[in-house]
Structure formats: structure tokens, C-alpha cells
């Protein structure tokens, strides 16, 4: 396992760097049965920074991302997001972390529009849903139940909910799975825009070339 760091996207003087680290993982280890998926992993990410997690199938990418999102527990080590453990965020910090994994988080018996409305209501966002569905080519299926969508369309609808939260940290597990080249371009653009706004992202991917840019922290599992 190796963690390499390229220069950040935006020039960051060292004294700002010190305080600007928002996501911190220290000496993180996860054991499954007898085997360690990873051991002694350190990771520090600040605004505008993208952590790229690469590794073979079964190397622990998803496990790492779930631990960073506070959805899983590490065997040892510490994760903090802006000073608190991600599974015990203070009330005003709640909702700062978004996670999109293999499960799309949509109710199969509701339509695309109903699902998006639900997310927007829960996160208290007033986003223009029509424009959002247009951007992802979902406006034709707005009133179709998610159950009847193709895998790629379900993935698009799932990723659309990213725009319906005000999260500062995006944790994405292979976001481009099932997407066509057009959809991949949109998502890569969204990640770039999120970083540009001062957001932070951790992305697990098998196609790191799409996202390799300055400011990437590479985590090889």
C-alpha cells in the first residue's frame, strides 16, 4: 500500500495547509477474519483535494470508503471529519458527508421525480429538479418508477441526488459504473466543479485516468 501526494490544485501555503485538513485518517486498519484488508493507512485531505482510491477487486476500497463515511467501523485507527468522528457528527455538521456506493439509495416503487423530491426535502434543498433531470437525460423518465429503469439510468438518478445535498465531502464508490461516456463526462465534470467550490472528494475507481489531475492524493490498496 502506498500513499503518494501531488501538489494541490490550488496553491496552498504551508500555514494554511496545517489548518485546512478536513478529512483525516490516522493509522487506519481493517481486518476481515484473519486477513488485514489494509493496515496503518494515513490520509489527509483538505478543500479542493481529491483522494483517489485504486486497487484490485477485494482490496478493500469499498470498506475504506464506508469507514471514511462513518458507515463502517475500523478495526483500529481514527477517522475525523473537521474534528469529529464521521459517525458522531455534531448536529450542525450532519449532512456534510455524502456517500454514493453500489446501492443506489432510491426507492424502486417511487418514480424518479418522487425520489429526487424526497431527497431534496430531507436535505432542505430548493434545487430545480427539471434542470437537474435535463442535465442527466432523465427528463423523459421523470414519472417512471425506478424499478423499470435501466442500470445506467438508475445510476444516473442515484448520482443526481448528489446535487440535492449540501455535502462538503463526497465519497463515491466507482461512480462511473454502468454509465455511458456521456454520463461519465458529466460526473467527472461535477467532481471537478465540487472541488473548485472548495469541496473535498474521495473516489474509488478502476479508471483513475479520468480523474487524474493536479491535487490528487493517490491511495493504492
Amino acid at each position, binding site marked *: 500500500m502506498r500513499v503518494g501526494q501531488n501538489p494541490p490544485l490550488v496553491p496552498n501555503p504551508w500555514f494554511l495547509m496545517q489548518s485546512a485538513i478536513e478529512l483525516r485518517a490516522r493509522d487506519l486498519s481493517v481486518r476481515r477474519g484473519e486477513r488485514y484488508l489494509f493496515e496503518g493507512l494515513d490520509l489527509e485531505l483538505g478543500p479542493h483535494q481529491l483522494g483517489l482510491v485504486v486497487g484490485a477487486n477485494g482490496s478493500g476500497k469499498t470498506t475504506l470508503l*464506508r469507514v471514511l*463515511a*462513518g*458507515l*463502517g*467501523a475500523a478495526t483500529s485507527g481514527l477517522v475525523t471529519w473537521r474534528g469529529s468522528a464521521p*459517525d458522531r457528527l455534531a*448536529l450542525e455538521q*450532519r*449532512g456534510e*458527508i*455524502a*456517500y454514493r*456506493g*453500489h*446501492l*443506489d*439509495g*432510491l*426507492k*424502486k*416503487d*417511487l418514480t424518479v421525480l*418522487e425520489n429526487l423530491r*424526497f*431527497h431534496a*426535502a*430531507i*436535505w*432542505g434543498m430548493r434545487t430545480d429538479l427539471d434542470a437537474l433531470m435535463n442535465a442527466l437525460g432523465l427528463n423523459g423518465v421523470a414519472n417512471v418508477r425506478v424499478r423499470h429503469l435501466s442500470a445506467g439510468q438508475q445510476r444516473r438518478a442515484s448520482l443526481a*441526488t448528489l446535487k440535492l*445535498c449540501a455535502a462538503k465531502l463526497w465519497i463515491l464508490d466507482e461512480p462511473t459504473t454502468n454509465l455511458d461516456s456521456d454520463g461519465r463526462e458529466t460526473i467527472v465534470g461535477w467532481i471537478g466543479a465540487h472541488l473548485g467550490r472548495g469541496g473535498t472528494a474521495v473516489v474509488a475507481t478502476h479508471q483513475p485516468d479520468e480523474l487524474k489531475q493536479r491535487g490528487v492524493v493517490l491511495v493504492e490498496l
Partner: protein
Amino acid sequence: MAPFVTIVLRDLRIAVRRWSEAANPLLFFVIVTTLFPLALSPSADEMREVGAGVLWVSALLSSLLALEGLFRSDADDGSLEQLMLSPVPLGVTVLAKIAAHWLITILPLFALVPVLALSYSMPITALPTMFCALLLATPTLSVLVALGAALTVGLHRGGAIVGLLVLPLTAPLLIFGTRATDLGLHDEPTAGPLYLLAALAAFTLALGPVAIAAALRVGIE
């Protein structure tokens, strides 16, 4: 409050779209209560004596049937982890899920109980007490069922185990519920058992969501 209503409405909408699933516990309740007279001697006096007990036990068992869908479907499609990461406190989410479960599986029982009570030749004067007792006991029942569902959300087949976990805990409800109904049948003061049911409801509704939220956090990993 707004997220609470949003989650309840979402679950109600899904239940309407999957109404055949939602109707299962009700049909079970009707079938079990009509099977008893066939097995026992059909004299009106005896029916009246066992009626309250049969209705209460059938109501407890039928509520167990609906418990699979309480958290399992949300866990399977990833919407539970999205709700955990949302700004809504998990306790509020849990309470909303319990409220929706109560509205879907328990509220229709109130329409069936008078019909079935009459078929057990219980006097109409006993119905108000029966309704009061059900109204006070069923929130506790829903919380207990939700606790069982949350503890087994990580298992792929929880069905039988949940019954073993939850049914012993429902004993106080059964004791005080049938006691209140019996006292009502014989025109005696019913306040005692009703107060105890109300105390149980206050206790479980206050502390239950905290325990259920903790169980879900463990179960989702």
C-alpha cells in the same frame, strides 16, 4: 417536523403501491380470529370468554408479519444509509418509520376489531375499552417490533429469530390489554391496566428510538 412528515408520507406511498404486501398482516388477523371458533365449541358464552384473548394474540402475531419490511427494504436498496448520512437525526427517522408502520399495519385493525368482536358475541359496550387498550398498547408494540427488525437488519433471513426476540417482550401488553378488555366486558373500572399501558407507551416511545438507532448503526455495517 417536516422531515418526519416527509418520511411518513414516503412510506405510506410505497405501501399503497405495494398494497398486497401491506394487506398480508390484516388477512392473517382475520383468518386466525375466524379459525378459533372452528376449533373451539361455538357456544356464545365461551366465545365471549376467549374472544378478548384471541383478538389480542392475533393482533400481536399479525404485527410480526409486517416487520420484515420495516428496515430491511431500506437497508437493501441503500436508502437507509442515505438517511443516516442526512441532516435528519437518526432517532427522528426511526420514529417516522415506526409511525408509518403503525399507520399501515395497526390502524386498519381498528376497523376490523368491531366486526370480529361482534362475531365473538362481545357486547358493544366493551368496544370503547378495547379500542382504548389497543390505542395505548400498539405504539409500544410497534416500537418492540421495530427493535426486533433493527437488531436483525444485518442478517439476511431474520424472520423466525425476530419472533423469538420480540414475542416475550410483548407479554406485559398482552396481560394488561386482555385484563382491561375483560374488566370492560364485566362493567368494572378499567383505569388501572390502561394507565399501565400508557406508561409502557411513554417509556418505549421515549427510549426505543435511541436503542433502535444504535442497533441500526451496528446492523448496517
